[in-house]
């Protein structure tokens, strides 16, 4: 079997029951459950706020609520936790002394991280649906059951959000491979997210990838206009550049493991 697919399989085996695995499984429920608690505790307020199209209002509240901090932080944690599996267990040296190409290890680990992030989106979507339906069950005054679901908008928001975080997650992957210390990788990522939030009013923020998730969802027409924006192109650019730069750095470092 091709060593790349072997490496990919082993990377998936490593994340079983890891902290990153449990974060992905449970993380997607955080915001939708919070929304459901809000809806049930103040139905009169939120029935008005969600309006005549409750699914769209619910969806926007979920995406916009997470886009500024929760979702970027989730990406940083997942990326750092996956790479930290090797540092924390002191296993890099065993991986690097095994018969795998360096590129197999680097790219398969990146793919696993991206698969986990995409799984995070799928679970978030499922929890958004469940939160809407759950609200309807416990508070029949809401109108979720008779309103259209907007599956296309759902999917487009997922895609736009993913494009927006792709550059950031690639940079974070490179950082996490560099930092032996988990706190170093997380701390740097957190500082960059905060810097991004601080820079939002500045027009040059389109060049700062840690702010892209917020930039995508801070527009008023996000539910109807799905065109790819300037910063999303930049995100794809950062993804391509840092994936290659990170590989060069990984392959040519003096010490492995």
């Amino acid at each position: 079997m091709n060593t790349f697919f072997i490496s990919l399989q082993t990377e998936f085996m490593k994340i079983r029951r890891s902290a990153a695995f449990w974060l992905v499984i449970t993380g997607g429920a955080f915001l939708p459950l919070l929304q459901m608690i809000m809806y049930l505790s103040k139905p009169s307020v939120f029935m008005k706020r969600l309006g005549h199209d409750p699914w769209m209002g619910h969806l926007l509240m979920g995406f916009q609520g997470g886009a500024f901090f929760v979702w970027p932080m989730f990406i940083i944690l997942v990326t750092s936790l996956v790479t930290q599996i090797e540092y924390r267990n002191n296993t890099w040296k065993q991986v690097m002394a095994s018969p795998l190409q360096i590129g197999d290890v680097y790219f398969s680990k990146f793919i696993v991280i991206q698969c986990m992030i995409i799984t995070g989106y799928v679970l978030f979507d499922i929890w958004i649906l469940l939160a809407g339906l759950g609200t309807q069950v416990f508070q029949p005054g809401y109108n979720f059951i008779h309103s259209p679901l907007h599956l296309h908008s759902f999917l487009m928001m997922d895609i736009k959000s993913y494009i927006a975080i792709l550059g950031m997650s690639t940079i974070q992957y490179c950082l996490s491979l560099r930092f032996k210390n988990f706190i170093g990788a997380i701390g740097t990522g957190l500082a960059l997210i905060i810097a991004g939030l601080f820079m939002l009013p500045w027009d040059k923020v389109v060049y700062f990838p840690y702010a892209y998730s917020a930039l995508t969802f801070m527009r008023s027409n996000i539910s109807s206009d799905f065109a790819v924006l300037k910063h999303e192109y930049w995100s794809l650019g950062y993804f391509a550049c840092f994936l290659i730069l990170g590989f060069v750095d990984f392959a040519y470092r003096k010490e492995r493991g």
Partner: protein
Amino acid sequence: MEEYVLETRGLNHHFGSQPILREVSLQVPAGSIYGFLGPNGAGKTTTLRLVLGLLRKQQGEVFFFGKTLRSHRIEILRKTGSLIEQPSLYGHLNGKENLQIYSKVYQCEPGRTAEVLELVGLKDAAEKKASRYSLGMKQRLAIAISLLSRPDLLILDEPTNGLDPGGIVEMRELLHHLNKEHGLTVLVSSHLLGEVEKLATHVGIIHQGRLLFQGSLPALQSLKANTSSGWMLETNDAQEAGALLQPHFNIQVLTPTTLTLQVAGQQEAAAANRLLVQKGLDVYQLYVQQNNLETLFMEMTNTPS
């Protein structure tokens, strides 16, 4: 001509301006247990990391089975099992799952995982999380990983570190078994001379980055017989004792408190003792050196570079 499973030629390495290895040329014969011996910080781990490609080589050549790692990396690593420093295990997975990962990497046949678990005596602990293993169990699981591919060469860096005496004996028996029954060549580093003496067929002694001796264990023992037959003296000031004894006896200062002394017999030893006591020095011990390599090792590793 002897066939070497692993050979390094003129390996030099430095961290910054500090030289770590100087012209290290290891020769590990096929079928041997090669004890790579040296005090802590002598350069053992750096040598093994360089050999496995975990450190980028600066100068020198490394040959496995006559081939260079650079051009035959995958082929060589498939035939080489390793354990460098502490065991590399995924703590959140159980023993069996750890083995399954590397079983996939080495493309082992089904059932090999169970075989190596049996071999290292961890069959009953296979379902236990690796983070809950004792250090001895972790070492054995790490060795099981390195044995998965039925390697021709096993490289172990201080595998008995942190083990209790029972664990050390078990490890030694396991390595003997693998060498004798499976024809495995073993390169094992240690700072414990006694351990290497009991285990190795060949020895390399490294100190301050230089290979001071390399050869079979009998060759090292005969070197000892030729070079040292003296007495060991322990005192409060070996330098001063050395200066007092030098005009009368052949001596070598080993440490600030020990020296070796060449004397013809007990009466000369007693005379040396008297001389030191009369000059106000304390003599703690004066004894004929035991028939082991300790002294030779001490002599070699205390020689100023």
